[in-house]
């Protein structure tokens, strides 16, 4: 058990696909209410890292702890941990056959075992939180990309997760739709949600993250508060990468 306010602890996560080492001994801790942003080129293992945290991908080595309890090797209990770790995907991954409301409700009913009325109320509350109560009866195909992503955020939030994982939540969106999604995430950060965000939105990351981790080739090349990273990039690649977005 931990006595401090650490919510998530990642120790020496390593993962290879075939001969490719995708994650090389990644370690970090996340405090309650902290927002940690992960940036870095494509193919450096950011998605793999997030998926190892909730065991959608089983890491080869290393451990993940949620509130001091080990999530790795959790066996059948893994579903309980996943329910406490919200995840938002680049492609939304809404359930196509369900309305926005049902998308948010379904895990409340099936995983949390809520009654219909209670689940419905909770789902509507979460949709209101992301500004989409009036779209409750729309199917995913009837939503804009930005709306779909907000529904998927509501779906994750409805489980009252301890930590939220965002995997490039705006990368599949048209530029004019990213703002509404980032706004929702920003609000979560302000309200004290604990979050890991993989993003290419450098300015956004600089403005909301408590810590930025620059990843490359399966390692965290550099990490620190946004101010440090912005002003004194120790690594040439960080500067190149950050610089590209600073112009935006």
């Amino acid at each position: 058990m931990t006595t401090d306010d650490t919510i998530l602890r990642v120790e020496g996560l390593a993962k290879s696909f075939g001969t490719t080492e995708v994650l090389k001994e990644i370690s970090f801790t996340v405090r309650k209410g902290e927002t940690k942003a992960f940036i870095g080129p494509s193919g450096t293992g950011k998605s793999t890292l997030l998926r190892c945290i909730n065991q959608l991908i089983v890491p080869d080595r290393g451990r993940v702890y949620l509130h001091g309890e080990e999530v790795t090797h959790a066996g059948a209990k893994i579903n309980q941990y996943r329910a406490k770790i919200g995840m938002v995907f680049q492609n939304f991954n809404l359930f196509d056959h369900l309305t926005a409301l049902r998308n948010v409700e379904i895990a409340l009913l099936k995983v949390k075992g809520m009654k219909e009325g209670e689940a419905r109320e909770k789902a509507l509350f979460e949709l209101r939180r992301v500004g989409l109560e009036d779209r409750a009866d729309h199917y995913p195909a009837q939503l804009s990309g930005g709306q779909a992503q907000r529904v998927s955020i509501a779906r994750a939030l409805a489980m009252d997760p301890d930590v939220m994982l965002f995997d490039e939540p705006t990368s599949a969106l048209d530029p004019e739709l990213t703002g509404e999604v980032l706004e929702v995430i920003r609000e979560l950060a302000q309200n004290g949600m604990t979050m890991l965000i993989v993003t290419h939105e450098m300015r956004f990351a600089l403005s909301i993250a408590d810590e930025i981790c620059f990843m490359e080739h399966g390692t965290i090349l550099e990490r620190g508060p946004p101010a440090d990273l912005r002003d004194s990039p120790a690594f040439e690649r960080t500067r190149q990468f950050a610089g590209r977005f600073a112009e935006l």
Partner: protein
Amino acid sequence: MDQLAFIADILLPALWGGLLVTLQLIAAAAPFGVLIGAGIAVGRVYGSRPVQYFSRAYVAFFKGCPLLLLLFILYFGLPSAGISLSPFTASVLGFIFCNSAYDSEYIRGAIKSIREGQFTAGLALGMTRGQVIRNVILPQALRRAIPGLVNEFVYLIKYSSLAYMITVIELTGAGKMVATRYFTYNETFLVIGLVYLSLVTVTTIGAHLLERRVAVPGMASGRH
């Protein structure tokens, strides 16, 4: 005049009894065909190795075995293994085996056409694999498989007449008996043909209504 009297007084009453048996055969076989077909399809896509092998063998066997031969085995063959089935039960079993093998192929194809990310999203929410399959995958796969399943249902209507070969007096069998006795082959088989045609027509209309009823806006149906 004579012919009309024959059709009204003798043929139709005889066919009515046969039609009821045909409908019972179909009603008993079709739901299990879909149910087991779904199970086999899920086993083939998501099962462990042994389950996958079993599902594949099941499909290969029952797709490969001529239905009539299957009925003969079930009705004439099994008693020597100590299992005696009534003609009706043997027919229904044969139809279920055959129907489910084909249904599973349509459902499996539909499962594979569903975007992978939805499975991942279900797991990420804390659902078990079984919960994801039941609540996310199958509701979509079955919708997409409707046209194929309807196809199989139509085949079932028609091949249900094979039950006559193991002494079930269904529609075709009832007609054959009347035709032989009264020497009225043309009238009889024409009427029977019309009955099958209307069964198929009703099915097709029903399928369209069902498809429309369960349609989800923007979700691709099984029609391409």
